[in-house]
């Protein structure tokens, strides 16, 4: 058994770009679902729009890198407005269905052959991250024994963790402000807030935009760490994992999504590294599980974990059961 590899991969995924991207997506989703009680099932679309906004601006239209970032962020804001206007007046399950439909529309548009002149179709786009890596202050690989990151990974991780820190501060300050109290009150009882003269739809829209923009930062991190965008990265499963992460860490808790993402990716990487090793060394007979099948097991466990969490501990690790919006509709 190559324990060094198994633990190395698992420990790396505690801090790497994938974990950061999911943490940022989950921080945004936490604003939607945890604090406001909006059932946004299209979080992947916010990441996708931001990533493609950046990639298309730079790779297709030759805009400078910073302009690409601005376009990506604006894309997320516009998407929030487009999603919010038809649905925020409706019941929670309508928002769920419309957001998931919109996310799928966006993914299908990104991968369509018709628009491939601009989006690259299912190939996606490359060659937009050169300016980002040109700013890289690291020149050598960081080797800590069983974990190591090369200088590109280090640079993405540094920027990613700064983004996480900034996002957490924003969420923390926003939620203890008067604005945050209204947002949480909307989660608890929308009608009561409305009767106090607050414009509920407007507050929900602001929350949708804030969470979408925070999530879109995750889109930048994924795109830059891969130096490529690819439409199927932003499928509905992305959103479902982000939900698992929010609930695992504890909804309506500032640090919940980050801790949730670290645990989620550590466990998933551990299982995905452990099972093939067990098979290779004969501890699991191949008639029972082949290395190909081992890939599916991790995801079965994600699903099972999500079910068990919601049944037995819906508040997650840090949450407060009273603060989790699971009853209304």
């Amino acid at each position, binding site marked *: 058994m190559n324990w060094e590899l198994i633990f190395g991969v698992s420990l790396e995924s505690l801090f790497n770009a994938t974990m950061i991207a999911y943490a940022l997506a989950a921080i945004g989703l936490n604003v939607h679902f945890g604090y406001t009680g909006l059932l946004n099932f299209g979080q992947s679309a916010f990441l996708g729009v931001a990533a493609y906004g950046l990639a298309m601006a730079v790779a297709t239209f030759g805009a400078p890198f910073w302009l690409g970032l601005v376009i990506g962020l604006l894309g997320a804001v516009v998407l929030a407005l487009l999603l919010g206007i038809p649905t925020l*007046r409706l019941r929670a399950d309508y928002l769920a269905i419309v957001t998931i439909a919109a996310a799928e529309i966006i993914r299908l548009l990104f991968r369509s052959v018709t628009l491939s002149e601009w989006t690259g179709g299912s190939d996606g786009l490359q060659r937009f991250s050169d300016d980002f890596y040109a700013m890289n202050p690291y020149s050598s690989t960081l080797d800590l024994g069983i974990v190591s990151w090369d200088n590109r990974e280090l640079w993405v991780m540094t920027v990613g963790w700064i983004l996480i820190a900034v996002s957490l501060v924003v969420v923390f300050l926003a939620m203890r402000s008067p604005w945050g109290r209204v947002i949480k009150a909307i989660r608890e009882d929308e009608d009561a807030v409305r009767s106090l003269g607050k414009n509920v739809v407007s507050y929900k829209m602001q929350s949708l935009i804030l969470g979408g923009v925070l999530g879109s930062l995750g889109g930048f991190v*994924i795109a830059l760490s891969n130096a490529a965008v690819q439409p199927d990265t932003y499928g509905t499963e992305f959103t479902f994992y982000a*939900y698992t992460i929010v609930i695992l860490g504890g909804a309506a808790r500032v640090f919940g999504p980050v801790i949730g993402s670290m645990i989620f990716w550590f466990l998933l990487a551990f299982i995905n590294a452990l099972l093939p090793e067990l098979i290779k060394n004969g501890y699991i007979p191949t008639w029972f599980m082949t290395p*190909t099948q081992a890939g599916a097991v991790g995801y079965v466990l994600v*699903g099972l974990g999500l079910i068990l969490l919601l049944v037995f501990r819906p508040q997650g690790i840090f949450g407060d059961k009273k603060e989790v919006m699971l*009853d209304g509709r």
Partner: protein
Amino acid sequence: MRRAVIIFTAVLGFVLMSLGLGATSALAAGESLQGTLANAGQPVAGVKINVSDESGTSAGTATSAADGKWSVAVKGPGTYKVDLDTTTLPQGVTVTNGRPSLTLTVFEGNARNVLFPLGSAAAPGSKPAESEAPSQFDRVLDLIYTGIHFGLVIALAALGLSLIFGTMGLTNFAHGELITFGALGCFLLNVKLGLPLWLAAVLAVVLGAGFGWFQDRIFWGWLRNRRTGLIGMMIISIGLALMLRYIYLYFFGGDTRQYAEYVAQPGIDVGPLAIAPKNLVMDAVAIVVLIAVSLALTKTRLGKATRAVSTNPALAAASGISVDAIIRLVWTIGGALAALSGVMLALFQGVNYQMGFQVLLLVFAAVTLGGLGTAFGALVGSLVVGLATQLSTLWIPTELKNVGALVVLIVIILFRPQGILGRRERIG
């Protein structure tokens, strides 16, 4: 120009593996080029593919198998030229983008998918043999029929989803896995056990009913007794869907496979249309089943009880209706209808572990369009979705037809949020 007519998936194995999309291919050892050749949804076998490396020396050849798949293992990462031998294509079939030779880069550890879009030489339609291109009128008729056919198939699933939503309030994201269950059950009985397809289909529907009953008996009923909130249950259904989908992948594998019978069937002329008899049989079965369920809902005591629970569970319970028993019945019927829908769906697109998940959004669209929780609304909504997906191809590319249906969903929600047949009630 249109540079991205080359379609492939799997660019960065790591991202895909971390998202579970490439779970199967990314774990395969070594680099390879692979693909599936299909013409109008049917696999194309016996086509020769030559792969050569940058210096022009041959790196391997492959011939597509009965399921249209081919794969060439290459020595290592690098740039390879992939040639499709057009002389080995069946008569009347060509590479539609006119590029049977592609130069591709294979990354380390990457099983790169290569797609040659195939189509009929004359007109990409249902009648490749005909010399004259079908007129616009025929095409519209053809699309209307296909739309109604597809609408009927998803109506079966939508009816069950709508009944479950109506009686229990659950937006069931795991309904797609009930659809896949039917298709997989039918595949197992038909291909592995060698039963005739009609018998396998009937048994698969019975199994689907059992699966629905079982799910409610051991799982959803238990959650109801624990007073789990509705949004909690909705997210639980997402977890269940994820779990079931990857259990299917574990046992069935990631390939799309076909039933043993009725895969390719020549069309018979029905007026101006050429329709495969299997589609007509499916339509008849679907219509009979939908009418039977509708009649049962309106005429029988159990049907009336079901509608009573839908309208007001507390009042229904107070008037002596066993709400739990009704919900269990609805799960049983929903499971059977979804399985039937899956069996039919697999007849024209093959069996795949994520087929239900892929069609689920359209089923949701149908249910929401018709009005959440209204059984007859689900039928109307399904036909609208079926027609919208097909007829939208008159104006937008076929690959975007699902976008058309989903846009229709959002537009209708904008103007008539209660759906087409939904009662005007407060939903905000």
